[in-house]
């Protein structure tokens, strides 16, 4: 019944026994202890379980773990450097008061990692669209947008790409 999943999680090779019916969210939370991956609906509506698979943000609650075979997965636990310092994106969330209850936060940060990692500049409306797969009840998205916008702009100064 069990299968072995080989993949890279937060920059480390991982081998873990999984039930082929289980979601990546459950594998990450329950077998690997990566509890930043939150579950708010389990049907891909709220975005709280967002992680990056090969650099692309996905809802891990509707992504079977067996699909992650050989892939590279990143969660919020994998963002901080070895000194434990927060990334500029995480700092932007802290300083822009973009965090309230914090339950949607790890998922939105992972989408923002993808957005910021593109090296492109975005308008506020484009950012609204890019984070619209995440539901947040605390913030009205206002300070979240401020944080993502700040991280996008700061990153663009260093690795800016022109629109393709």
């Amino acid at each position: 019944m069990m299968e072995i999943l080989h993949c890279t999680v937060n920059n480390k090779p991982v081998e873990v026994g999984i039930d082929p019916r289980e979601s990546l969210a459950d594998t990450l939370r329950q077998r690997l202890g990566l509890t930043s991956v939150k579950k708010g609906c389990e049907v891909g509506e709220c975005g709280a379980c967002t992680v990056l698979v090969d650099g692309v943000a996905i809802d891990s609650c509707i992504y079977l773990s067996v699909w992650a075979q050989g892939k590279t997965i990143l969660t919020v636990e994998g963002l901080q450097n070895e000194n434990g310092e927060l990334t500029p994106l995480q700092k932007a969330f802290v300083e822009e008061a973009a965090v309230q209850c914090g339950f949607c936060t790890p998922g939105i940060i992972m989408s923002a990692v993808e957005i910021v990692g593109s090296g492109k500049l975005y308008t506020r409306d484009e950012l609204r669209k890019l984070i619209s797969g995440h539901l947040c009840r605390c913030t009205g998205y206002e300070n979240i947008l401020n944080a993502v916008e700040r991280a996008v702009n700061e990153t663009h100064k260093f690795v800016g790409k022109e629109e393709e």
Partner: protein
Amino acid sequence: MEVGRSIPRVDAADKVSGRAKYTDDLCPRPVLEAKILHSTIANGWVKSMDISAAQALPGVVKVLTCFDVPDIQYPTPGHPWSVEKGHQDVADRKLLSRRVRIYGEDIAAVVAEDEITAQRALELIKVEYEEYPVMLEPEQAMAEGAVAIHEEKPDNVLAKMDLRTPIADDRYENVEQVLDDPQFYQFRGHYATQQVQHCHIENPVSFAWMEAGRIHVVTSTQIPHIVRRVIGQALGIGWGNIQVIKPYIGGGFGNKQEVLYEPLNAWLTTQVGGRCVRLDVSREETFQNTRSRHPISFDVAAAVDKDGNMMARSCTAISNQGGYASHGNAIVANAITGFRQLYPDRIGHHSTAYTVYTNRPAPGAMRGYGIPQCNFAVECMMEDIALKFGFDPIELRLKNIMPLGYVDPFNGITCHSTGLAECIQKGREAIGWDELREKYKDQTGPVRRGVGMACFSYKTGVYPISLETSSARMVLNQDGTIQLHLGATEIGQGGDTVFSQMAAEAVGIPTEDVHIVSFQDTDTAPFDTGAYASRQTYVTGKAIKKVGLEFREKLLSYAAELFPEAKDLTISERFITDGAGEKLISLEELATTAFYSLEHSVHITAEGTNHCKENTFAFGCCFAEVEVDIPLGKVKVLRMINVHDSGKLINPALAAAQVHGGMSMGIGYALSEDMKFDPKTGRLLNGNLLDYKMPTSMDHPDLTALFVETDDPSGPFGNKALGEPPAIPVAPAIRNAVLSATGVAVNTLPLSPQKLVEEFTKGGLIGHV
């Protein structure tokens, strides 16, 4: 000054790094999984149940049904317990119920070794029902011959209130005579609100086990001490036999100001030998089986003199309570009170309220506690009066708003400070009200714009309607920092951060030197009833100030022992200094000495309770600019500004963030959120986050939060309520903006496209070329 600083949240770094632990993150695994069987009828009885197939399924540990639970009815709302019987909450719920009162009633539970097995076992249970007609609306439940949903209330009316203020003009005997007096403008209106859900992103999960003969429950709640009490009541055991732990929680908004599945979870562990049982609640169950905001209808009448003075009003409110009493009549009572208070009538006021059981999922507390509903009614009414009788809508409000020194004739709550007029002025200027009203005056065409506004008042905490009490404890560390223990809860609003700031302010140390113990454990946390009623910065703030000052005195008196010659000791920049400003000893050295002194060792701590017997009003307003696509019935919010008088702000940046979230919730309430039911079966049709339209980032404009800082003399630091208020005035502001854009007054929520097309058609804007 530590109060008034916009420091980052004390929990932000943990929350952006995934280290912050929420209930399910702490659950040991493997764990036994519980799942609940929900009824497939909305009104009736469970006649019998066959659990043999479920019981026989490998991996099933136990199947328990409504025939097995203790014969105890218990109350569930997060109110302080009343020692007076007459004021106790309605005890109308059992752990599992034979009497089916809503579609999805909890009728059995399975405990199994894994979730899939538990789910399969549920599907194997056979249920035989006796079925009654479904009643989703109060009119059905109040009709002659309607089946009683609870036998204690044969007419399905949980409570009725009738309140008349004293008549201030002896030419009249009652309000009705004033309302009929032809010398006044006479106004009649009907407004109604819909049922909506909190939509905190974390569902209310819990897990429970037994140890040393006691029951231990970890749960996502706003009210750990109340959860402990209700588990004791529901199981019929001593409250000391229960420990409740509240970790970080993923939002609450009032839904978790209710004891939800914790008593069932606690009972289930006792039925499986104390093994740890997790009771996860799906999003669909959260919609169907936890609380929501009451739909309330309002019939209002007003008499206004030629100068726009509000002379008298009446208001009849009917609140749809669903299948269980939950907070009961308290919410509609708050609604009619709020309706009355914002614009005190010069001659008199008459209000009537009914709370009626129906077969809907039971509503309870939700951000604003009846005030979003009454505020929709009162602020639609003001706008409609202004339009009908030719008053300027802002001037009409300014003429009638609650004055400084106002004392409520029933509960005595007093207006100790008000910046409402300044809030209105600030919002008016910020949005460019006068220019926009002029600009949008005579529009034609299918797409039109408008601006609207609404005001609100909101009390701070629940005194004197209920007990207000809070306790705090401060404990010195060897390095001169302190631990702050509270029973008050962080639920996402930023409580821990502002509590730390308030403690620092009172003691005289930097906020960085206050380590707040975020999780509440009822075995060790001081008593506080928890997060609700926008009470904590006010009520808990008073406890923190009181204990902080006592703690400070203890530090200073220990310093006085060490420096008997020194005069006028004080604390400054982590040092004890004397009257001349001379640094005598660092707090770290003082603390270490106090711990380890061979002459006088003492662990410096302070602990105390503040029984709060004060209340005050917070105020504010919302201004909204909208664009209405008439043929599509689509409203786009272009700009939105909330202006608040919450007294002194403890942390302005967090206050603004709190306001943004309330505005967002208000946008959903105004335009898209609506729990929809099948009238035949009573089944909730859109109980998930796809079909229930909570606003996304695409549905918002940029949100602007402004403040008018009054210094409230009753607040511990000049502060008053802020948590719930931002959500209150948004829906009527949007409704009034749509009215100004189109001339069509929509009197029910939400302003969904379907309803707007109907209303615009009725109003002649669609279909008449």
